């Protein structure tokens, strides 16, 4: 085994450990109780935290479900709308100007952006409910999706569409049979990214949600401000679960398919 190979292996292991250690610590904390300084280990290992939060009024399960519904809706709408909109922008004569507009939500911080929008959300009765949060998060995720897909609509894709047309196919036929299959991997990656944007979103959600919609991220902050590290760790475990599943799905299906 060469020295370079050994060094690379060590580096990879160090990287893996640095990624995995915080996750293990979180799980460890979520099963702990009464861990006071200077004790090296907690005094008690228990399922109590998990059972309390899920079954005895901790309300984690509804938060988990609300977060999942919001993130899946945002990811679905942002990806689909972004894919279609980006096509029109990419082939539009004012392409550059329209693309500039899509960067606008990112020029401000999400919290400031949410404050700017709050008035309109109140007027439309969209504060403090799930629909309002989905819409607010879409304002960030949708432009992201548009920017993500703009590069896809290049000259080659246009030529494929033109070719299908001269072979007798309609625009929708070209879309279904050629464009969508070519874009499949990108669509899944964008869905994954938009899901993550929504899943970890805090600023917009707390301002537009008025604290009435308790997503998992909001819960984590609540536990942290209550200085309850065990419940906070437990919520964090739940917070990282869907992204980990999506990452696994991404690796298993998309990357393998690309190979």
């Amino acid at each position, binding site marked *: 085994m060469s020295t370079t190979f050994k060094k690379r292996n060590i580096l990879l292991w160090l990287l893996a450990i640095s990624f995995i250690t915080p996750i293990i610590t979180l799980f460890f904390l979520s099963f702990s109780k009464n861990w006071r300084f200077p004790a090296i280990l907690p005094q008690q290992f228990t399922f109590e935290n998990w059972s309390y939060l899920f079954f005895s009024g901790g309300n984690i399960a509804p938060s988990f479900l609300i977060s999942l519904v919001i993130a899946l809706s945002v990811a679905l709408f942002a990806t689909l709308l972004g894919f279609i909109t980006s096509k029109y922008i990419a082939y539009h004569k004012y392409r550059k100007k329209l693309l500039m507009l899509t960067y606008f939500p990112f020029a401000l911080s999400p919290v400031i952006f949410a404050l700017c929008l709050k008035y309109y959300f109140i007027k439309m009765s969209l504060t403090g409910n799930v629909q309002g949060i989905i819409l607010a998060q879409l304002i960030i995720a949708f432009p992201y999706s548009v920017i993500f897909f703009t590069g896809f609509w290049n000259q080659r894709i246009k*030529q494929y569409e*033109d070719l299908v047309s*001269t*072979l*007798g196919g309609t625009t929708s036929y070209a879309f279904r049979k050629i464009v969508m299959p070519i874009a499949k991997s990108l669509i899944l990656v964008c869905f994954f990214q938009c899901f993550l944007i929504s899943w970890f979103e805090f600023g917009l959600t707390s301002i537009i949600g008025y604290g009435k919609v308790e997503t998992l991220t909001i819960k984590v902050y609540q536990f942290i401000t209550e200085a309850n590290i065990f419940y906070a760790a437990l919520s964090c475990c739940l917070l990282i679960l869907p992204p980990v599943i999506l990452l696994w799905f991404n690796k298993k299906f998309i990357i393998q398919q690309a190979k």
Partner: protein
Amino acid sequence: MFLQINHIQKKYKDKLVIQDVSFGLEAHQTLSILGKSGCGKSTLLKIIAGIEEQNKGDVFLNEKNISNINSNERNIVYLFQEPLLFPNLNVFENIAFGLRIRKLASADVEQKVEQMLESLELKDHDKKMPHQISGGQKQRVAFGRALIINPPLILLDEPFSSLDVETRATMQQLYKTIAKKFNITALFVTHDLKEALLMGDKISYMDKGLLEIFDSKKDFIEADKTGVKSEIEFWNNL
């Protein structure tokens, strides 16, 4: 005339790409269009195919004005510089694509594609994906995909420009054979002098948005602007 083009004009912003182009082409003939890059030859083909819109003029096919008909209803196939095989479909499905659009029965599709694969000497490659075949084979698949729907007119936009010299010569020969076998009517755009002479039953020269069709190959060779004389001179003085 089978194909009749009347006073086509095309502008991009203020730039006149095609000034005023009119010509006719008989059925089962190939017209070579020679011209430098940017002279408007690709734009002319795209207008005839219906994937670009002209500012003025009309296109008649078999005495029917097709100027306002969508490209997917014109039944004119445009072959790009690159073969543009659909990367998600194998060779068989790429060739069958036009037949699937026309919703032919599976047995008919299979039979027609098998025949086409046979004619193009691609029988052993039907299950392969586009990235698994060579440049020449890709171009043959592109031909097969166009020919199988039996279009009245095929537009070829420098189809062999990305091929090496040897494969290009083979493909030129193959095109001649296919054109004869399938009675193809085609416009063949090229910037290669030799290719224009080899491929066309008639030859034309396009420059600054204007097209001139030569009555004979002799006239084409003798015209100064085509560059044939200077080419011959170059080889004689070598």
